């Protein structure tokens, strides 16, 4: 997916990519700032879990489709505006290798995190770890908003002015 977006981006003119990146940077600062000031901005998303019936299609098929769905992101629950940075950056950088790298990084981090729940650290049970992680959403929300703000500022400093 990232490589495809990178290829598509390479066909876009530099002026167009800079213009879109500038607007995206402004939006990132605006949305990140709003979220950090306590105003919730609903994420444009499908907001759904991966289909339960995949469980019955065998471990390999289930793992493949579940992993693909979570790794692609937009096919499952996003929760954070920052997610849009991944495909947008892959497109606007316009280099297939970098696009693939960014998307791969996202999918790998999302997928490998599951192993944490299979082998919980610090002597925790899977249920305890699950409850601890789920209870940190408000902190994660702030961190996501902060990342969005930081990336927006950095992008604007590089290309916007």
């Amino acid at each position, binding site marked *: 997916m990232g490589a495809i977006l990178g290829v598509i981006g390479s066909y876009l003119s530099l002026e167009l990519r800079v213009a879109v990146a500038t607007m995206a940077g402004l939006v990132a600062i605006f949305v990140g700032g709003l979220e950090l000031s306590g105003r919730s901005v609903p994420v444009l998303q499908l907001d759904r879990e991966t289909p339960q019936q995949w469980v019955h299609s065998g471990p390999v098929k289930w793992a493949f489709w579940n992993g693909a769905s979570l790794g692609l992101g937009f096919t499952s629950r996003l929760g954070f505006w920052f997610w849009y940075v991944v495909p947008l950056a892959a497109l606007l950088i316009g280099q297939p290798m970098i696009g693939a790298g960014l998307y791969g990084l996202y999918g790998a981090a999302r997928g490998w995190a599951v192993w944490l729940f299979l082998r919980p650290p610090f002597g925790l049970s899977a249920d305890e770890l699950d409850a601890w992680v789920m209870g940190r959403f408000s*902190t994660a929300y702030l961190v996501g908003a902060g990342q969005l703000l930081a990336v927006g500022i950095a992008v604007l400093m590089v290309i916007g002015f």
Partner: protein
Amino acid sequence: MQSLTTRVLSLSVVIGVVVGGLARIAPRGESWLLASLGLSVVVVALAQQTLP
């Protein structure tokens, strides 16, 4: 939570300005932006684990 919000806001602005500044003036500056972007992608992918 208020102090955490303030800290995250301050830290985000500092990170954004430092990364943006380095990306603009340092040799091979774009690497700083890419590295920061990559790190942010990993952090947010992990943060998504908090979703129900």
